[in-house]
């Protein structure tokens, strides 16, 4: 499996990379999605700009209540980051659930988010975390909410000459429990359905619930009706079951050779209940 010919540049600086992108080149990060597509000749870029060697896109930083993760930070770096494990454990847990060790060593958060595979894991967490994405072009710099970023399967708000510069997530407040639960595809490990849950308790009651869903439909989303059903409640097993039953309501579920739409809906309900239950137990 040999890809079509292409030109390759590994720029030293971000500015240099952005100029090449403005001239029509395509970014290469970990290559874990792009290279398989090139080998199958589903993608045939003429010029690749390797972002992998840019030092200024690889970082995890905290500034006043928010965490900034550079686009080329790998899944393995996110999974093992002490600061993320402590301050945004949902993202670290999600990264650990991606593919296998070799994929996590190469694949990056920016590449995964830009690729927008409907079965990718991060999108669930990014919805639940109400994350923001910093996008940069040669002449532009803007922030887009994760809720507006994913347009359709493999389609995002990115302009052709823009890259994801960083992913911005909040530092979890005290009393918050989180969990990511997925049905693994048996070969690749992708999410047939994945649910990210965040639950915050105040004086015994649920003060905040966020539920992010991936894999079910072409776009990751927040299950707002299910969230509302739990707000202000104690979080009993029945209340959780009732809320979980709402996550797939009215959603146009995907159907493919791995799982029918009906089975996917069922998985969404089961995994939502598990994610909420686990998140609630972790609020203590």
């Amino acid at each position, binding site marked *: 499996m040999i890809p079509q010919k292409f030109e*390759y540049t590994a720029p030293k600086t971000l500015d240099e990379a952005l100029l090449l992108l403005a001239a029509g080149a395509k970014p290469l990060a970990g290559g874990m999605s792009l290279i398989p597509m090139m080998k199958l000749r589903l993608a045939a870029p003429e010029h690749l700009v390797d972002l992998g060697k840019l030092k200024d896109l690889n970082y995890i930083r905290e500034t006043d209540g928010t965490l900034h993760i550079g686009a080329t930070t790998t899944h393995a770096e996110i999974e093992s980051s002490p600061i993320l494990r402590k301050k945004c454990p949902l993202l670290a847990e999600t990264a650990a659930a991606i593919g296998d060790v070799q*994929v996590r060593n190469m694949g990056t958060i920016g590449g995964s988010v830009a690729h927008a595979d409907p079965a990718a894991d991060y999108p669930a967490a990014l919805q639940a975390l109400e994350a923001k994405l910093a996008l940069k072009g040669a002449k532009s710099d803007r922030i887009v909410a994760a809720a507006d970023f994913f347009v359709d399967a493999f389609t995002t708000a990115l302009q052709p000459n823009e890259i994801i510069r960083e992913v911005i997530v909040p530092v979890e407040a005290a009393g918050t429990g989180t969990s990511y639960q997925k049905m693994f595809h048996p070969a690749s490990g992708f999410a047939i359905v994945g649910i990210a849950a965040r639950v915050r308790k105040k004086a015994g009651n649920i003060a905040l619930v966020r539920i992010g869903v991936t894999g079910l439909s072409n776009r990751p989303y927040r299950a707002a009706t299910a969230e509302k059903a739990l707000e202000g409640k104690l979080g009993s097993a029945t209340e959780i079951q009732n809320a979980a039953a709402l996550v797939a309501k009215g959603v146009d579920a995907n159907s493919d050779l791995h799982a029918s739409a009906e089975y996917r809906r069922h998985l969404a309900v089961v995994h939502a209940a598990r994610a909420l239950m686990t998140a609630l137990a972790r609020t203590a």
Partner: protein
Amino acid sequence: MKIRVTINGKSYSHDVEPRLLLIHYLREVVGLTGSHVGCETSLCGACTVELNGKAVKSCTMFAVQADGASVVTVEGLATDGKLHPVQEAFWNEHGLQCGFCTPGMIMASKQILDRTPKPTEEEIRHGLEGNVCRCTGYQHIVNAVKAAAAGAGK
């Protein structure tokens, strides 16, 4: 494009096409055929090598991405005719039958032990998720990693 790669401690320099995959570079240009091509679709792990200390699937990487990097293949593990502890353990515990998956299994196992010197069985199985074996049923491979971990403490 001209690249310079350190492989098993030795420096190599070649002019390669950007589309040349790292596995083909290692096997066909450098002549190191220890790393195998199983699926060529990033799923089986037979092509696993270490790139700057990290286990990667060399069938899903271009050789040009490795420019300036240090690569270790299964051929680079033994020193002065003495097997690496992971190789020794695979031998002792019958961690292979046909041996096709073994170079990749050994590189992935080495990564597990580099990161977690005393792994639990669950951690071992999790660490081998990217590697497929069609012969052993995995139990002997898991035993080999356990034995290597136990031996390293001696």
